[in-house]
């Protein structure tokens, strides 16, 4: 068994324009794509459909070849040993969750509107999704309020999730993840929200990609920290002490 440190790089970055499913049936592909298009809809900006979220989800569910991109984004890591075993089990469960999820969406559509999900207009599709999710359609977030919350688990793993939260999480992941995974085509999702992300993962490994311009460039520690001027034990440092400004 090889160490995680020795996993080899296989395959190539996923082609977002592919229309060939590795996992979904044609009907599942179309239905999940339609669901994704309502989770992150298209408006004056592109949405999940244009960003090719469907390709991202299909590749993820196809096995364990598309779980971890290699560090430089040239391909994917080939897992083995206990990690491969664990991921096979996790993906296999998700495959069942999605297969059953699409069936449930269609039977809900039939029950309410007498037609499969794909034949519905978008408002009817939303009504089905409200029913599936068990909650009202999310309302917009407004300024001018305080909305308390309590501590929650901050790691967004999909392990053991039911269909609806798994789908919402995967659509968000496909929309915003590095394009190597097949979604976020041409980094369009990052452009929409104003995230100046890296052109490639490799650019984050060697200093090519930098966000230094998002820091404050004109500042004086003595102004920010008035107490520095009162203390005498240590000198107030100056910018020239930093090599990476």
């Amino acid at each position: 068994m090889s160490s995680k440190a020795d996993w080899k790089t296989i395959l190539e970055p996923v082609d977002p324009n592919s229309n060939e499913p590795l996992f979904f049936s044609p009907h599942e592909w179309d239905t999940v794509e339609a669901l994704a298009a309502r989770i992150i809809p298209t408006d004056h900006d592109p949405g999940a459909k244009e960003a090719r979220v469907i390709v991202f989800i299909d590749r993820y569910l196809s096995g364990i070849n598309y779980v971890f991109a290699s560090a430089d984004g040239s391909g994917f890591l080939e897992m083995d040993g206990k990690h491969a075993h664990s991921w096979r089990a996790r993906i296999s469960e998700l495959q069942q969750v999605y297969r059953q999820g699409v069936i449930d969406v269609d039977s809900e559509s039939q029950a309410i509107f007498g037609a499969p999900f794909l034949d519905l207009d978008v408002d009817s599709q939303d009504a089905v999704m409200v029913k599936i999710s068990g909650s009202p359609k999310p309302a917009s977030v407004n300024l001018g309020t305080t909305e308390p919350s309590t501590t929650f688990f901050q790691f967004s793993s999909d392990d053991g999730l039911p269909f609806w939260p798994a789908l919402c999480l995967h659509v968000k992941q496909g929309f915003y993840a590095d394009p190597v995974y097949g979604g976020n085509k041409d980094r369009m999702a990052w452009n929409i929200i104003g995230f100046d992300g890296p052109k490639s993962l490799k650019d984050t490994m060697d200093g090519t990609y930098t966000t230094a311009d998002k820091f404050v460039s004109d500042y004086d520690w003595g102004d920010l920290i008035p107490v520095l001027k009162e203390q005498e034990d240590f000198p107030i440092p100056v910018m020239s002490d930093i090599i990476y400004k």
Partner: protein
Amino acid sequence: MTKKQKPDAVDVVIVGLGANGGTAAKVLSEAGLKVVGIERGPWLKNDKHYSGDELKFVNRNYMWPDSRLTPRTVRRNENDVAEPYPFSMTPQLVGGGTNHWAGWVPRPRESDFMLRSLHGDIDGASLADWPFRYDHLEPYLTKIEWEFGVSGIAGADRTEPFRSKPYPSMPLPPTRWGKKFYDACNTMGINAFPIPHASVTNNHKGRNPFNRTSFWNQYGDPSGARSNTATTFIPEALATGNFELRADCFVREVKMGRNGKATGVIYIDDDGAEVEQDAKIVILTLGAIESARLMLMSKSPEFPDGIANSSGLVGKNATFHEYLFAIGFFDKEIDDPVYGWAGNYISGGTMDFYETDESRGYIGGSITAASQTCHPINMVFPGRPLWGQALKDSDRTFFSYAMKIGLILHDLPQEANRVDLDPNVKDYMGLPVARITHKAHANDVAMGKWQVDKNVEILETAGARKTIPVYLDQMTGNTCHQHGTARMGFDPSKSVLNEWCQAHDVENLFVLDGSGFPTATGVNPTLTMMANAWRCSDYISDYYLKGREMRLPEPK
């Protein structure tokens, strides 16, 4: 299971090569001792394995333990059946939590070492003083700051106790949201300063800190900016020729001999074979959850309830902190962007609310700091719409217009809050997993409420037009800080370890992680842990292994 031939006996075997195991490896191998370090995870290389891939590092747990292979379970009450829950899953690999950490390394305060002397017995809590004081640790805090690499501005924190030296590196410039924090604090008369950071901005000890990508907290750093024992202390230990590193090897037992001492450890190597490593000294540095688990799994005729556990306290009095915060949103139509996603996680912070003020309704206090709101998939945004136009609109509106002010909750120890072996759930090797029993103390809830409300006040002063305070319900283990499961003390009936983190029951067994902390402190613990690991390692090489003894007088 196949058994392999015993390797040669060594002076010291260290189990777990994170912040503290890395420190012990460096100090003891540089002292000329033969040291073997055993790490259950892999040895990833920062320049080869790390990059800014949010999905891989934050969602798919590339660096974090796989919760199917090594689950943990949690329950709130004694009689509940614990449920699987990835509680405090600190990365398990060479370098441990120093691979992924944001790297807050504030110094502890004098009051942290004497909470019981200051406050007496608090109902429901098991306060205890530390067996040493800030002054004992100060030289070692300085050693870690200089040897490991910490950036900060000496004198900027008006509440800091004596320090013997300034910092070896300057902090990064303030972020935009950090500047908002400084400005609001100055308006409110709060002393804000750059939180000391386990990273460098200069060529300290030959490092090349080029990473300005903002892929920081939870990501591995491909550059030499972050202080990580895998890129600092462990290579320094290897350079002595006295240290051998064995990665991907799982220690399942500390073995007792017939003379009341441990003989070494038994581990399963990466071929699945069982190996026994003998050593004069066994050091545990797996983190307070896994060190306690290993001690409880190491049963022998002398110690049927786990090694060095005659007090019955191994696993008890566990404290975990909790990261609480408030989010503030600005108005895209009017305000400048604050780029909450940019930066190396922390910028300005304050210790002004750290010391007890009983008018607030609780004892103790916490460090407070502005911090990153993270990347697009995982933007820290409680109440972020799950789907639909509302999701798209809020992401577009707030991604660059959000900031966060958080705190590290100084939770009180309670004997019933503990780590033990789950009777039902096993890991991939069939070994019982760590079960966490934890219920927050009323003091924890009150402290969290007051401090989060203070954070809201700072955000509002900074001009935030919407706030989302996040209060404590129950601990989720979201800080990865772990302490208290083998508390230090002078009385062997009330503590597991002495003032050198040496087991009262087994003189050649040392536990040099947070397990020994009698109380949690309200600062991020790693600097204190590493300084203490260095201090105790000095005791091992200068006294214990030379057959000498030195006892500290009990502080008054």
